């Protein structure tokens, strides 16, 4: 096991645009909105940034290819800039690039920015895109909810869960996110809903109804990272540092080998195990204080609770219904509203989750602030399809160096 990056990198500043249907904004405007906040928070000037990463997934729909759009939007001073894309893990990948640059000593201060301008695609959900010449010939003509909905079928079959029990727990996930999003001024969806709203909503892909699906939003989020030493030298106290960054990418086993039953994410289980090891976490249910997971669909959040080794296998339904993951529960999940209500501008989502951790650990989360300042938090992204995906996990926490 490599030594990892635990406590080698601190977050110097962060920013996040308001998420939503930003009809009056370009991707460039969103980038500047997130960056301005991050720059002010970090207390530095643009010329102090040594390297930058741009995370954007559906770039042909807004900014176009390469890292140039970020360099132009922020007028970066001819520094190395890299564009990354890894499905819905894109934002965390951008963060990983910046963090690794600082950890390696290649950069003193690095920037990660994720952005997506989805509401110019004309689609209500994610746009339909090509998947490569051969997959176009053999894969089903499926939507994202259709792929993720299948977790429910396999989960029910595995644990013998009654469809209505699973549906109710899934509904609780969505109601919780709407409650939390209502307390977040930057969230896309801020209305409260009831269990019945979820259960009676139109079917999108069996058993996912409209309210089981996250919002498709415009938005950007930004992080500026440096070493703890430099952060201190810049006058920062109460540092939030990176404890672990892990990515696990499917190698086709789930898609082609019968060893996977379809009810969980193999990548999340592996990435979580590695992340806990890197962060020195032995009992995640006791040690992690706050989580933000990739709740693209309610059923995704439900099975992820087990894949992160926080709920026991087959027990997520009960933990969810018991309020374990509510804002005032033992480990709040999506205290900021999650993808469901904060929104899901793909390239920005991973950074938005880290933004929430950063605010909560510094006691700056406003109305939704956890009173018992979280010390250790986990963010999680899933990109692609349950049977073939990219999982990224970050653990951030209060710096103890």
């Amino acid at each position, binding site marked *: 096991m490599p030594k990892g990056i635990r406590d080698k990198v601190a977050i110097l500043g962060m920013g996040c645009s308001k998420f939503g249907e930003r009809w009056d904004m370009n991707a460039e405007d969103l980038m500047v909105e997130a960056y301005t906040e991050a720059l002010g928070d970090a207390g530095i000037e643009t010329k102090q940034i040594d390297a930058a990463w741009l995370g954007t997934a559906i770039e042909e729909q807004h900014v176009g290819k390469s890292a140039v759009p970020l360099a132009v939007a922020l007028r970066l001073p001819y520094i190395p800039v890299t564009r990354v894309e890894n499905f819905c893990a894109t934002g965390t990948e951008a963060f990983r690039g910046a963090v690794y640059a600082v950890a390696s000593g290649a950069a003193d201060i690095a920037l990660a920015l994720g952005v997506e301008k989805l509401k110019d695609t004309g689609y209500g959900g994610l746009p339909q895109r090509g998947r490569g010449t051969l997959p176009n010939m053999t894969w089903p003509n499926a939507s994202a909810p259709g792929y993720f909905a299948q977790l429910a079928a396999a989960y029910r079959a595995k644990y013998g869960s009654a469809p209505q029990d699973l549906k109710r727990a899934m509904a609780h996930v969505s109601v919780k996110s709407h409650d939390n999003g209502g307390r977040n001024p930057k969230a896309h969806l801020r209305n409260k809903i009831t269990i019945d709203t979820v259960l009676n909503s139109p079917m999108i892909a069996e058993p996912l109804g409209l309210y089981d699906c996250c919002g498709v939003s415009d938005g950007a989020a930004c992080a500026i990272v440096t070493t703890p030493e430099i952060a201190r030298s810049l006058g920062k106290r109460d540092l939030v540092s990176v404890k672990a960054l892990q990515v696990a990418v499917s190698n086709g086993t789930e898609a*082609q080998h019968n060893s996977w039953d379809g009810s969980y994410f193999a990548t999340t289980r592996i990435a979580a195990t590695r992340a806990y090891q890197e962060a020195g976490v032995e009992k995640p249910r006791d040690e992690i204080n706050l989580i933000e997971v990739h709740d693209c669909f309610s059923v995704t959040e439900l099975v992820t609770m087990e894949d992160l080794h926080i709920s026991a296998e087959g027990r997520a339904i009960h933990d969810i219904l018991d309020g374990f993951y509510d804002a005032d529960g033992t480990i709040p999940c999506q205290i900021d509203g999650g993808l469901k209500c904060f929104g899901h501008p793909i390239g920005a989502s991973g950074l938005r989750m880290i933004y929430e951790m950063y605010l909560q650990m510094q006691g700056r989360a406003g109305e939704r602030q956890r009173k018992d300042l979280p010390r250790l938090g986990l963010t999680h992204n899933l990109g692609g399809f349950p049977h073939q995906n990219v999982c990224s996990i970050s653990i951030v926490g209060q710096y103890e160096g």
Partner: protein
Amino acid sequence: MTFGILSFGAYIPRLRLQRKAIADAHGWFNSALKGQGKGERAIANWDEDPVTMAVEAGRDCLAGLGPVSLEALTFASTTFPFLDRLNAGVVAEALALGQDLATADAGQTQRAATSALLAALRGGGPSLIVAAEKRPVKAASPIEMTAGDGAAAILVGEGKPVATLLASATRTADFVDHYRTPESEYDYQWEERWIRDAGYMPLVPPVIKACLAKAGLGPEAVTRFCMPAVLAKVANSVAKGAGIPDAAVADNLHAVCGETGTAHPLVMLVAALEEAKPGDRIMVVGFGQGADVLLFEVTDQISALAPRLGVKGHLARRREETNYAKFLAFNDTVELERGMRAEADKQTALSALWRNRHTVTSFVGGKCSKCGTLQFPKTRVCVNPNCTAIDTQEPEPFSGKIGKINSYTADRLTYSPDPPACYGMIQFDEGGRWMMDFTDVDEKDLAVGHPMRMMFRVKDIDSQRGFRRYFWKAAPAATTDLSGRA
């Protein structure tokens, strides 16, 4: 060893449009249709065409035979999806027949299938004749009522035939009862009674007489008379004119299927063979710019054939369709607002299709020669986490395998010509899996563990470039027993 029909099969699509639904839709406009609103006609699902139906009929015909080394395959139709691309070539690829066989498309007349069968019966190596038709029909036209979609397949060659050809006769006559040109999308048809009185009645009986003369048999020797003709009692009149007993006249399947065009003589032949006893003599008439008449004698091998669905089994595999608007939409006869998701580019990289033809068209996967793991598609590195050997996979056909649903959904967001789009992970019993489109399935029947079989279907239609791609989909296996299927 004798030369003759070694095996037979058929394919009738599962959907049966109720003719009453057609009559109800158009009765205001053409009250004559009201009287025809009885029974049902087979309609192709949105993802079926003559090529896919021919493949299924071919599979039905080859059921239980094991590997067959064919010398030729002829595909007869007047509604080929491709004008310049060998349609028989797609069928041969989907049936994984290998490349060492002669292939031909036979068309341009409703007689194409009987003529192709006759040519094959003249000798040579084992040969498969497939015929399929899906006629484009104008809304409120008589043919919309009478036509049906379907296919049949006949395997001929040396061996132990189930039926041998006693004699045949053919006449050519440029009698134009209907026609279609490259410019015209639909058939143009002349008066039905003229077709009967000036066409069938004078043209067919002399050919029957010539055929019987060659066989040295009298008309009473015919035990089953198969002549497709939509007009009521035409087959009976022709039989009577030729001296064939009325009891021998076979049902034209109008009530349950409709006339499957070029394929129909073979569909009726297959239906006759399914009911036949050794010693039966089956006469088949193909009519179109003349007539082919073929007289077969059934052998005692008829009872030795492996089970197949055939006409009877496929007719039993049936789902009533009462929504006429769906039929119009499936056939692009009405322009629906399909939404932005339907605009996604469906261009096929023809180079990639060629490179991956065994995967895509033949549905051949891999079997690791080191660990034995089955996988689809065949890849360079074995998927077994405990193996991962490189370049060890031998070709492994998956099209005949049964799989189980591992996960599924019914998706109302994605574009489908027949929503909801049902798809999911299919796990093959012997190993291997793939996320696949489902077809011929009802949402309420979906369940983890449900057994599914593979069917060759239209995957996508590229309307921008006029191309269509084919791939395999999962359909419920429950109504069928495909054990031993190739």
